[in-house]
């Protein structure tokens, strides 16, 4: 693989850009791999990448029914933060955030990580107490966050209305090294690095069955034939229930639609990410100038990648109160993704009742930020059978009553 560099741009400029290579190969599936990962979203690709890079397992295929990054990874609003309440969450999200800091260099691919800072607004007294508690927890966990005053919020976000009639801004939880990244580039960068290690990324190939003998996984049936494997990783977000059904177990997960929308591009007006969890709205400005807006998830099971219109309406209504200047903005695009929700709003990274089959799911509305850390932990779990990063996130935590309750800390966990 040729490296991307300033020199490469100059070289290609001189020869009419005739020397760029494809970023990844599109091979025919082989009959067998050591590891098969189902789902070429960020989490699946990152799992494959760290399996090869850190744990020396390179005979790997990543199988994707559509195009890589076309699931939630390419549909999310790209907020990256690690200010969670519980210790296991802080560990995996902070590992992830810190890997994001140097990911462009590591992958030789510009993922446009922008640590511009994230504020979570406290708009009720309940939230003030909740976020103060989170700030204290973060201090103990070594995650740098701070509870800031309304005045400081106004300094950071001049376009905000801090004394709105319904939900005045009473403070905020500020993580200065949180931010955003380019979602597609994260998937593309990992895919390019995986392909470079000799791994096969097989797109347009749907897994339709999981084969097993004596309780141990032996391979998958796909729309492009049978593929054998020693170990199988299911990393399919909203479709986890469908794949678990093929493998013969059930999950504490339900799939619902979550939507986002973007406005027409405007001049730079907000250089941090703002989340308003009480009213279920959050907003950032993209490099193109569009205001990127997200809201709450629908309340019922859905696989259509379209959400209910009234959720968009509620989100925008709430945000207009907090950001009056957006009231005349035209919205350009709206879309949905199918998110996999667990009861405690924390992910599942786990062995499964089927020997050799592992699952990584339940990231719900907030897993983009976790892609590098989750991939790292999942790779370690699959390679060694144990990972300190994923240990608390096993499927058995529900039976054992060891929930990792993040639903209080982040009503919406983007």
């Amino acid at each position: 693989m040729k490296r991307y560099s300033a020199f490469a741009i100059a070289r290609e400029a001189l020869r009419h850009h005739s020397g760029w290579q494809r970023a990844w190969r599109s091979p025919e599936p082989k009959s067998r791999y050591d590891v098969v990962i189902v789902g070429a979203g960020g989490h699946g690709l990152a799992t494959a990448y760290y399996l090869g890079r850190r744990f020396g397992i390179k005979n790997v295929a990543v199988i994707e029914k559509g195009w890589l990054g076309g699931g939630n990874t390419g549909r999310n609003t790209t907020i990256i933060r690690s200010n969670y309440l519980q210790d296991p969450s802080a560990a995996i999200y902070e590992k992830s955030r810190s890997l994001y800091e140097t990911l462009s260099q590591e992958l030789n691919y510009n993922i446009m990580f922008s640590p511009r800072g994230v504020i979570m607004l406290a708009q009720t007294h309940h939230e003030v107490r909740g976020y103060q508690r989170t700030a204290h927890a973060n201090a103990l966990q070594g995650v740098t966050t701070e509870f800031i005053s309304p005045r400081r919020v106004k300094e950071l976000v001049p376009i905000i209305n801090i004394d709105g009639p319904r939900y005045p801004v009473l403070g905020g939880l500020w993580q200065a090294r949180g931010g955003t990244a380019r979602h597609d580039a994260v998937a593309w960068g990992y895919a390019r690095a995986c392909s470079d290690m000799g791994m096969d990324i097989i797109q347009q190939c749907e897994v339709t069955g999981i084969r097993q003998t004596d309780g141990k996984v032996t391979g998958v049936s796909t729309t492009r034939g049978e593929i054998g494997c020693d170990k199988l990783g299911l990393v399919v977000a909203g479709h986890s229930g469908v794949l678990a059904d093929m493998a013969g177990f059930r999950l504490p997960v339900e799939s619902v639609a979550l939507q986002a929308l973007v406005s027409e591009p405007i001049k730079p007006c907000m250089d941090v990410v703002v989340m308003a969890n009480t009213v279920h709205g959050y907003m950032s400005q993209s490099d193109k100038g569009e205001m990127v807006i997200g809201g709450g998830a629908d309340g019922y099971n859905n696989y259509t990648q379209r959400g209910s219109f009234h959720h968009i309406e509620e989100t925008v209504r709430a945000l207009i109160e907090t950001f009056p200047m957006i009231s005349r903005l035209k919205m350009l695009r709206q879309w949905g993704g199918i998110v996999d929700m667990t009861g405690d709003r924390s992910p599942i990274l786990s062995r499964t009742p089927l020997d050799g089959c592992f699952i990584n799911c339940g990231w719900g509305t907030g897993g983009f930020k976790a892609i590098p850390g989750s991939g790292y932990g999942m790779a370690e779990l699959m390679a060694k059978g144990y990972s300190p990063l994923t240990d608390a996130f096993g499927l058995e935590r529900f039976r054992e009553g060891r929930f990792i309750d993040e639903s209080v800390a982040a009503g919406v966990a983007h």
Partner: protein
Amino acid sequence: MLTLRCPVCGIDADETELSPGGEAHLTRFGPDASDDDFHDYLFTRENPRGVHFERWRHSYGCGKWFHAARCTVTLEVFGTYSAQTTEPPAGIRAVIAEKRPGWSWRGLS
């Protein structure tokens, strides 16, 4: 927008009038149940890509609970029926069998 006919008051209710109540026909296992049954009742959920049965409440209407049979892929509604039943009535199952031959849901078909 999803529209369900409330079987109690007979009104075609928009989604904004309704509150979703999750998976239908759960057996509410108590403290004397086995660990497996109690675990499944509390946490494990059907999450089908296709035919699904759910509880809904006509919260901004008559306030009553009822059941709905729906497809999670197309959002087609097969029918709604009374809350006072432990399984989908034969009429609803016949409608589904016609539209989705070979369907199954938690052992029902």
